[in-house]
């Protein structure tokens, strides 16, 4: 006998979260308030994402959890173990095998399919929060579709830096209506927000759930003369040689030495096992 209810949360809590998810799906990009529960992990560790995942999991699911693209970092490992313990679901590192993927700040490189659900951990769901701290005001701005302030912010970026300097959590407009924070994913990932998968966003501390249904129009905000550009480091992955993935820069010695590696560990490992090599790959053993 298990000590926990399936997927940790009690049934009434799950129903409340499920109703919020369905309203979020019906109103793409709109932040639905929900009665976020305390989870056995601190705020900032994905309590919103964990609650959304818990409400979506079925015993037949295969769960993948990534933290900045990696399957083997603390946050990913602890959440994966949490659901292994409380829901007894199968887990995987491979994007293509997962039916639910909980992510912190990345969209996997491997294209998602219609059978998958991507759950984002969101720290600050309100894209206008740093421009207008009052919830009553930002609510009114969303209601009136009054997003001029966000364009002023992007314009000030251009006036100060010559280009839009926002590199992550780059604001998007969903289905020509709501401006939405895609969570702190790099703007390199923004084009992937138009996806065949169901995308759900959970913010535990801020008590908001929102969603982007499959094939929903998601446009990154920009100007005609400063069009949106997804940015990546101008390098190849030093382990798999990929020139089309989002890269992490890693300091490797005290002399300024550095390497660039794919942030998506599963994608990088799959490429390496398919024979792709980067400049720091170990030399092949002569058999």
């Amino acid at each position, binding site marked *: 006998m298990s000590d926990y209810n*399936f997927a940790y949360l009690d049934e009434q809590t799950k129903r409340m979260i499920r109703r919020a998810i369905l309203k979020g*799906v019906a109103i793409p990009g709109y932040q639905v308030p929900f009665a976020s529960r305390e989870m056995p992990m601190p705020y900032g560790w994905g309590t919103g994402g964990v609650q959304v995942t818990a409400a979506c999991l079925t015993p037949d699911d295969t769960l993948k959890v990534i933290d900045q693209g990696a399957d083997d970092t603390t946050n990913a490992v602890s959440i994966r173990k949490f659901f292994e313990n409380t829901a007894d679901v199968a887990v995987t590192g491979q994007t293509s095998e997962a039916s639910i993927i909980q992510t912190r700040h990345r969209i996997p490189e491997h294209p998602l399919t219609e059978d998958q659900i991507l759950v984002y951990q969101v720290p600050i769901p309100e894209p206008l929060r740093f421009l207008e701290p009052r919830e009553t005001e930002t609510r009114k701005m969303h209601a009136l579709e009054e997003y001029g302030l966000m364009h002023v912010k992007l314009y000030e970026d251009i006036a100060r830096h010559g280009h839009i300097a926002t590199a992550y959590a780059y604001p998007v407009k969903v*289905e020509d209506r709501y401006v939405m924070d895609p969570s702190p994913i790099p703007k390199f990932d923004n084009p992937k927000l138009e996806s065949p998968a169901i995308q759900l966003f959970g913010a535990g501390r801020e008590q908001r759930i929102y969603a982007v*249904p499959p094939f*929903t129009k998601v446009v990154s905000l920009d100007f005609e003369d400063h069009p949106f550009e997804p940015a990546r480091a101008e390098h190849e992955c030093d382990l798999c040689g990929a020139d089309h993935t989002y890269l992490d820069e890693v300091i490797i010695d005290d002399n300024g030495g550095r390497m660039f590696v794919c942030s998506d560990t599963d994608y990088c490992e799959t490429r390496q096992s398919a024979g792709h090599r980067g400049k720091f790959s170990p030399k092949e053993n002569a058999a």
Partner: protein
Amino acid sequence: MSTTSLQGGFDTPPKQSALAFRAALSTMARPGNIETLSGGNAPTPVSEAAATLLLTLCDQETPIYLAPSHDRPALREWIAFHIGAPFVAASSALFALGTWDTLQLTEFPTGTPEYPDRSTTLIVELETLTTTGPRLTGPGIKDHAYLSLPDVAAFQQNNALFPMGLDFYFTAGVQLAALPRSTKVEAN
């Protein structure tokens, strides 16, 4: 209270409701898709899909409106025992259950501009459900989809309210489909 109203709930609520929710999510996220939903059995005239949906989404926090087609003592007893939801008038319902002809759409709350989520989800019982009929486009639909909707103009008016508006589930036997307010409907 009759003993029949004590039956027809889930045997293993956590797992059955999880599977049922995924069907509900999949249909709401992909208007025009039809999923199979079973496990709950409410007194006539409630379909198996509608009964399962009520067990999955409703509880004592969700006031329910029963349309005249479904407002029967046996069903009230069943909902009282399994779900515990209060029965209310259409104007304050979070969920509504009935046939298309008996649901007066203008009576339900459609949310407010600040909180468009505070609107009713209607469960509409149909005779049949097929992927033919009016043409659907919008979020969740790749190019277009078709669904045997009972009306066209009513859903166009509902879509015109976006982001406010009503969300619909359609049930027939064990079949389930959905139409969120975001979907554009055209006669085919």
